[in-house]
């Protein structure tokens, strides 16, 4: 089997998204650390892997890919018979999961990522959190989570009855938000809270977090 490589940072949400899929599948991979503090992600060598100058980038032999959600989909399909099943073989069920994957990408992530930036990244960079922005983002994210609450009363996981990429893709931003004042948004919605507890307890996810400590 060709060597799988991930180029990125263990603190980058997009990198964590890809690594979580690899651990769920039990796949061996090489992690190439990209030092964003010195702008390594804008170096010519890295731009050859991702012309947008963003982490992560991924290699499977000669195949090179960027965009975390395209990479996880590739992994889930190409290595369908390894480890956890992350997609649905049934085409109708997969269509439903695909809807909620888009929901994560277009409804949830824009607010969640900005909230992560305000509450978690800014303090790390010595910048001041903007309380008005936080209030606005929490209200918007709250509305999305109201839809999730309704969905999760009818479905065990977001994409359907089985865990899949639609759920997994949320883990990186969830991880950061649960460590912030935004945790209340998840705790106050019982079905959302149960779903969060379930997916964050997965052993593969613990391995992703462990990478931040090494």
């Amino acid at each position, binding site marked *: 089997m060709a060597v799988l490589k991930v180029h990125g940072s263990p603190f980058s949400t997009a990198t964590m998204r890809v690594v979580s899929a690899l651990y769920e599948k039990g796949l061996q991979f090489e992690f190439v650390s990209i030092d964003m503090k010195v702008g390594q992600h804008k170096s010519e060598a890295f731009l050859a892997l991702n*012309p*947008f100058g963003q982490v992560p980038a991924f290699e499977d032999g000669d*195949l090179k*890919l*960027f*965009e*975390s*959600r*395209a*990479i996880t*989909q*590739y992994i889930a*399909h*190409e290595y369908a018979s390894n480890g956890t099943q992350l997609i649905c073989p049934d*085409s*109708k069920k997969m*269509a*439903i999961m*695909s*809807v909620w*994957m*888009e*929901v994560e*990408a*277009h*409804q949830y992530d*824009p607010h969640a990522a900005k909230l992560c930036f305000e509450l978690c990244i800014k303090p790390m960079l010595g910048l001041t959190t903007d309380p008005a922005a936080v209030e606005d983002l929490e209200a918007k994210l709250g509305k*999305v989570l109201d*839809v999730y609450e*309704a*969905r999760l009363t009818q479905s065990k996981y977001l994409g359907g009855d089985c865990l899949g990429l639609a759920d997994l893709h949320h883990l990186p931003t969830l991880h950061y938000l649960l460590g912030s004042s935004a945790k209340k948004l998840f705790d106050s919605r019982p079905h959302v809270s149960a779903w969060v507890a379930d997916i964050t307890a997965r052993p593969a996810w613990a391995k992703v977090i462990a990478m931040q400590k090494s």
Partner: protein
Amino acid sequence: MATPVKVYGPPMSTAVSRVLACLLEKDVNFQLIPVDMSKGEHKKPDYLKIQPFGQVPSFQDESISLFESRAICRYVSEKYANQGNKRLYGTNPLEKASIEQWLEAEGQSFNPPSSALVFQLAFAPRMKLKQDLGVIKQSEEKLAKVLDVYEQRLGESRFLAGDEFTLADLSHLPNTQYLVSVTEKGEMFTKRKNVGRWWSEISGRDSWKKVVDLQKAPPPKSA
């Protein structure tokens, strides 16, 4: 003959037009069902049952109900793989991986700034809303950086994912159409040599011309 699929929403919506382009590329018969957004029909309980975020489009095909335009396009391309444009979603895993990569690039990098510009420059005036000059400036700067990447890519490759027109290119049609035809930001595309050549090719496709005609048709009269 198969029952036509149903698409809910006005063709002038960029997300609705994305789905229509895909259906036309795949020769799938569809019924376009109006949703009167000026009367808030998309926020009413009956509509929220099929699209809980209160947005257009939503879609029905026999027993399945879907939303999110890119998810609908993927479903249509897979289900009707053997008809219409058979290369739209790739014919092997490597092609598909490249298409997914550029479809994600569209959704994550191209769509946010281009959508903001479409809203500010094409829709806000029609809706008599005040434009936000700060948003326009920021969005233009972001979009310019994305188009620089596209300029390089399209110098190496005829279409974004490879040598064939795919869903990845199609997904860019709606926002670009507005920017090029209704705003003065069209130059961002036409002045970049490779991007300009690509835009000409993809917008010249019969399927897209039909979508543009649907957008120009007068809206149906309310009952």
